[in-house]
């Protein structure tokens, strides 16, 4: 077998390439959303696609998230595969009814006669001084909805491979992209210079088609002292904290929240006996609660300490207090300490 050709890509470029690869392979894929056509999207995720695949497969949509999702349901019912962009996750709510009541339910309520293969992509998370309405992490509002898959990549390689898998998946996938790390990984040290993806091995993204499977977590660091369960931007924050504090943690990048890779989680926690779950989202009823609950349900007798949570606070994401809100290095360190010293 010949070596796979790779190209250095940041996350946006990787996501863009996933679109390109899949649109060339599957004529039934259509891409639309606000500003995604000629302009290529406010984050440039769809740059060049309209030129390459034409206006009827890649086009701007009215500012109506409900209409975007609603028409996508019809398109999927027809037999197309819509890959739609919601400009910011904070603006997904006008489409929430169509997602929860329709996209998620149609396979079930039609006993499989109609299916809803579609990908709803949306940049999420804070760390870019976006204030209350460009910073939210609403994944838990989707993990509670049966019928949806929820995927969150943490690096360019996974972003492309997961997006390809999401597009190929027969079920609807909500695909949240951590916008803070579009252009480079972020370790939570807002006061230190950032490094671009080009310095990171996972920006070496294969050209062409490949899959990172849905439902499979990745152990991004092996360790014995505790297990850290996280996803998105927080993977990098967790890795940095582990390094900064010289802790032999096992760090698991979940990649898919639903369906969850429970095996990898259980195996790890049973080994380490301690667990920390890390989310950027507001604390109460976040996905971390589901993770913590599952871990204690399934690994209780292996646990030497309570499962701890590192999360954003239960407030909106306040513009100027971004770095007080963001679950950064100190919050990580303190939680690690709690878990390890308990």
């Amino acid at each position: 077998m010949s070596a796979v050709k790779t190209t250095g890509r940041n996350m946006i470029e990787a996501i863009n390439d996933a679109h390109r690869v899949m649109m060339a392979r599957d004529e039934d894929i259509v891409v639309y959303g606000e500003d995604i056509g000629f302009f290529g999207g406010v984050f440039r995720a769809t740059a060049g696609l309209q030129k390459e695949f034409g206006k009827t497969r890649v086009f701007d949509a009215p500012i109506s998230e409900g209409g975007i999702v609603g028409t996508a349901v019809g398109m999927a019912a027809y037999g197309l595969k819509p890959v739609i962009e919601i400009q910011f996750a904070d603006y997904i709510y006008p489409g929430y009814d169509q997602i929860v009541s329709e996209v998620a339910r149609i396979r079930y309520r039609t006993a499989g006669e109609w299916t809803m293969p579609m990908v709803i992509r949306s940049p999420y998370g804070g760390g870019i001084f976006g204030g209350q309405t460009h910073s939210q992490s609403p994944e838990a509002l989707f993990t509670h909805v049966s019928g949806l898959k929820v995927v969150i990549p943490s690096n360019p390689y996974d972003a492309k491979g997961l997006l390809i898998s999401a597009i190929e998946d027969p079920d609807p996938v909500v695909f949240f992209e951590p916008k803070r790390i579009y252009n480079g990984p972020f370790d939570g040290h807002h006061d230190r210079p950032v490094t671009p993806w080009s310095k990171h091995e996972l920006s070496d993204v294969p050209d062409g088609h490949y899959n990172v499977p849905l439902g499979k977590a990745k152990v991004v660091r092996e360790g014995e002292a505790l297990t850290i369960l996280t996803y998105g931007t927080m993977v990098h924050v967790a890795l940095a904290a582990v390094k900064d504090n010289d802790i032999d943690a096992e760090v698991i990048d979940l990649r898919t929240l639903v369906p969850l890779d429970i095996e990898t989680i259980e195996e790890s926690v049973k080994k380490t006996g301690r667990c920390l779950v890390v989310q950027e989202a507001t604390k109460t009823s976040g996905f971390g609660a589901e993770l913590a609950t599952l871990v204690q349900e399934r690994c209780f007798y292996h646990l030497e300490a309570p499962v701890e949570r590192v999360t954003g606070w239960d407030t909106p994401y306040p513009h100027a207090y971004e770095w007080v809100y963001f679950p950064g290095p100190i919050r990580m360190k303190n939680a690690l300490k709690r878990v390890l010293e308990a």
Partner: protein
Amino acid sequence: MDKATSRPNRPALALHVPEPPFRPGDTPNFSSIKVPKAGDAPRPDVAAKAEETFPLCTHLVRVLDEKGKAVGPWDPKLDPATLLKMLRDMKTVRTFDDRMYRAQRQGKTSFYMKCTGEEAIAVAAATAMDPEDMHFPTYRQQGLLVSRGYPLKTMMCQIYSNAGDPLHGRQLPIMYSDKKHGFFSISGNLGTQVPQAVGWAMASAIKGDSRICMGWIGDGATAEGDFHNAMTFATVYQAPVIIAVVNNQWAISSFSGIAGAEQATFASRAIGYGMAGLRVDGNDALAVYAAVKWASERARTNKGPTLIEFFTYRAEGHSTSDDPTGYRAKGEAEEWPLGDPIARLKAHLVALGEWDDARDAELDKELDAMVRATQKEAEAMGTLPQQGFDNIPSMFEDVYASTPWHLAEQRDEALAEAREFLGHEPK
């Protein structure tokens, strides 16, 4: 609160709350409703600019006159066989409704919804469209299925959630779904289907297909944001879609004024978007047919979408859970100026010399017997009270294409519970 200010030359404001003309105890009198003469409405060319239709948004396309004659430019000049099939389908719907309503009252299922008085709309629309065309219906378009030949027995099985229910007992009665008959899964959530219809039509256009689509919504549900989403997307992309508002004057207990009908007809919404619009006598099967035909030809030739308001009256309660005597005057249906759609189509056939009372009574008998016989067959497959513990694993299927671990665990737990509850292995 801060004190309301009253200022010089600044009169006190007042909230207007719409109120229907009649409430329980009143004697309904609909003489204030303007009913244009049959044949009066002009018929623009199918390729006309949208604005040529705007006067029709406040008019009423009518074909059948009081004597059952088809008149005017909208007369579709249908052959008697088609007319007779429509009559038969409409009667079938009404007979079916009556039987199923009773079945619910007898405790054989949880819920039922009739479309009494509105039978012409779905039946004539189905007749006017191609069989390959798609519908995104609400719960009062059972006539689409009947007209397209979907088995009544299967409908009943769905209503009973029994072994013959293609939806495996998952959906509320009457929430049919059938791909082969171009009938999209009915949603419990009002309005969602209309942007979906637009999306389906957009998809058909994207693929250079020739099939068009019709999305249905009630007068009350037009207030949902999804109606606007549908109108916007249909307009922007000139989707080959027909959006049908069935204005039956009521949304459960709220009259159409609560959805905005005091100030404008529902057809007028079209004007705001620059979309073609028609307002049609929904109790006149020929007018319905002609309007849908016109709009479908328009859509089919890439001339853009049409909004059609079907003006009709919900002659019965909202559903088996509803008692309309609590909020509207008795006798409204009888006073309704557009009459009964079945009686009017029958009169037309009689006027044509194609039909008479004897044959009509015969047909009623035949349909009644047929529906009863079908009901027996359906009930042989079970009614709701007997359901719920057979084939439990099916309940965990189709959440996803394949069953993830957590649903597999839950399925096993559910099976164990059922075993314990039943005292034996569930079927």
